[in-house]
């Protein structure tokens, strides 16, 4: 029996067990929407802007470990979605974004709502497809889900012209797929793993540096076991938080531009570095030349060969799935008689404890103004460290990363690579739908939240009881901080004048709004907000305008050149 291309698209989503599609209708996708309407298996979530559709699919993917799906129309639907696609691309998040296109005969004619979707998205997708024949839809969708989720994950765009969704063909969803041009390596090279083990056993000042790959690769258990067995210090990038339990004594906190003193110093001064699913980016090691001032041997485990020796030359590259490689490393460690050098390790830890004693995250606790760090600490207490936390981008993001101690993976959801303001609330919608019973918090600032504020409407429609923690300092805080440090206190366009009354704004969307102005009220307000299990609560914390994020490595400086409080 022949069915329409649109029905084939929906049947493919059903075959992939997709439970939510985040989208916004328009001319080029009307046939697909018609088919969504006629079934109940795949639920559609109507956002208020296509950027939010992709962020929501992204948040869903990050929290659940499954492929997120978005559906947008041609032209402006696609261009609005691009920010979301690029966000997912930079953080290696598996998405399938189905985009409508003008009919095949109109392509290239500057038709109404036409853009070159494949061309526009090419640099920010793992791969994209233009489906010109109805018979190719099923195979292409199968490939899209397969490529999105395998290897180093990433977003896939499937662009489908309107006439292709109207045309008919028989439907058969391929059970398996193989692509001669796409075979990611997953198994690490045994010989390289052996070399790595030998380096680790001879280390005097070892260090484990982990990134988002540990979370994406589901390697938390393997990482934790290995690090505990070795007794080595461990740090994590912004993207890797939760990959290793933050409360563990061997964890030195986040490293990088706003990392802890002890993590950055240990990273700089170690003699053997084990990098796992991390990519030595500019916000992590700062200036690579400064990083090279100290000699160290580097082992790098990553599923993407191009991440290895890109910014930093490594001594033992291991291409493979991090979980698989860590299992093999643990196995070889168990079978080996070699042991880490205990006395050298003791000396190294003594040094690290001295660094740790500097307490680089301290802040003024006696201030009459609300300190943003304090809000996050209280948030951690009130939620017992078990909430799913999304964030926007800026100071609040760094404070959330520093002060919310993540014990488990996939609990910390933020735009690390692209740094997309406006990510937090729509991502939280996806997280809440993936985990309807869990507490989902969006930590944001008054500038970021305004970038996707319209999604309060979506939250109402789907009764998503998010808790929005807005650290309102009336500034684009991180911009202001840079202007204070590097631009002579000239606060060019970073002051947010004419802000809305967020309490009434939240109320006008049918939510609960709270404004908190005194430190003494913080804890009580949080407790009250989290009691409202079925309501979205927008908490507007009026915080100290002058607070900065410390430590800070200025751009172009090295890991040991931190500005400390």
């Amino acid at each position: 029996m022949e069915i329409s291309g649109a029905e084939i698209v929906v049947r493919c989503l059903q075959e992939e067990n997709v439970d939510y599609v985040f989208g916004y209708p328009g001319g080029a996708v009307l046939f697909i929407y018609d088919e969504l309407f006629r079934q109940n298996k795949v639920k559609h979530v109507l956002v208020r802007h296509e950027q939010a559709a992709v962020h929501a699919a992204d948040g869903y993917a990050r929290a659940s470990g499954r492929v997120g799906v978005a559906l947008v129309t041609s032209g402006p639907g696609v261009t609005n979605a691009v920010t979301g696609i690029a966000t997912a691309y930079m953080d290696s998040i598996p998405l399938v974004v189905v985009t409508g296109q003008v009919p095949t005969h109109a392509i290239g004619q500057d038709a109404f709502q036409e853009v070159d979707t494949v061309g526009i998205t090419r640099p920010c997708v793992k791969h994209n497809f233009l489906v010109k024949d109805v018979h190719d839809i099923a195979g292409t969708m199968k490939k899209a889900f397969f490529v999105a989720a395998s290897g180093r994950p990433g977003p896939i765009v499937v662009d489908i012209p309107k006439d292709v969704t109207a045309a008919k063909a028989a439907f058969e969803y391929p059970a398996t797929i193989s692509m001669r041009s796409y075979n990611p390596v997953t198994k690490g090279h045994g010989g390289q793993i052996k070399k790595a083990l030998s380096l680790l056993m001879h280390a005097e000042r070892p260090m484990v540096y982990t990134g988002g790959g540990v979370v994406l690769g589901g390697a938390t258990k393997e990482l934790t076991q290995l690090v505990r067995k070795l007794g080595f210090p461990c740090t994590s990038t912004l993207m890797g938080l939760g990959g290793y339990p933050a409360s563990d004594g061997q964890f030195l906190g986040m490293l990088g531009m706003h990392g802890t003193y002890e993590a950055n110093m240990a990273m700089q001064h170690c003699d053997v570095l084990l990098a796992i699913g991390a990519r030595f980016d500019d916000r992590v090691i700062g200036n690579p030349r400064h990083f090279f001032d100290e000699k160290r041997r580097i082992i790098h485990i990553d599923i993407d060969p191009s991440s290895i020796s890109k910014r930093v030359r490594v001594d033992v590259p291991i291409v493979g799935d991090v979980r698989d490689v860590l299992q093999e490393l643990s196995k070889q460690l168990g079978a080996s008689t070699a042991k880490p050098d205990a006395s050298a390790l003791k000396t190294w830890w003594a040094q690290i404890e001295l660094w740790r004693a500097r307490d680089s995250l301290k802040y003024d606790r006696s201030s009459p103004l609300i300190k943003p760090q304090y809000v996050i600490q209280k948030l951690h207490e009130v939620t017992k460290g078990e909430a799913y936390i999304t964030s926007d981008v800026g100071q609040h993001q760094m404070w959330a990363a520093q002060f919310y101690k993540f014990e488990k993976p996939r609990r910390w959801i933020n735009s690390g690579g692209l740094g997309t303001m406006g990510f937090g609330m729509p991502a939280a919608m996806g997280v809440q739908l993936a985990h309807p019973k869990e507490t989902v918090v969006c930590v944001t600032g008054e500038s970021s939240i305004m970038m996707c504020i319209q999604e309060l409407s979506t939250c109402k429609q789907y009764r998503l009881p998010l808790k929005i923690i807005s650290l309102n300092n009336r500034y684009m805080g991180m911009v202001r901080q840079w202007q204070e440090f590097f631009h002579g206190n000239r606060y060019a366009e970073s002051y947010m004048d004419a802000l809305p009354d967020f309490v009434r704004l939240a109320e006008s969307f049918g939510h609960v709004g709270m404004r908190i102005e005194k430190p003494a009220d913080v804890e009580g307000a949080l407790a009250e907000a989290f009691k409202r299990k079925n309501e979205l609560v927008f908490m507007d914390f009026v915080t100290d305008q002058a607070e900065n994020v410390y430590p800070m490595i200025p751009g172009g400086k090295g890991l040991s050149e931190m500005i400390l409080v």
Partner: protein
Amino acid sequence: MRHIISVLLENEPGALSRVSGLFSARGYNIESLTVAPTEDPTMSRMTIVTNGSDDVIEQINKQLNKLVDVVKVIDLSEGEHIERELMLVKVRAVGKDREEMKRMADIFRGRIIDVTDRDYTIELTGSGSKLDAFLKAVSRDAILETVRTGASGIGRGDRVLKL
């Protein structure tokens, strides 16, 4: 250093733009790029001449391999290989130049493939440096037009790039 990289990729629309887009997005140089389908029409073979430090070339190889449409990549300059480029050059052929141009074409083992009473079109094949040498050897004024394909390369002996 100059490298000549061969890429086997799916003969899909847009595959070329994925490769050229990769080079421009990451700031790699392209000296020349040629592409055409292989004996298997579902696959294309591309030859890219580029230059860069060892680190850059390593990244180019890895980034090319990462493209989903790319089946195989080899850096021909890592081993023995043959490199050829085709050039068509239209030269003025009047007066004493007419005999001279015929002689130059012979010396460079070129062929005259089109003739009028005022000009010749010469077809020349060889390494890029041989074609450069020809252009240097004839006077600038005599050259009316040149068109070059860019280099194609293949490994020597049993060095084969195949699926």
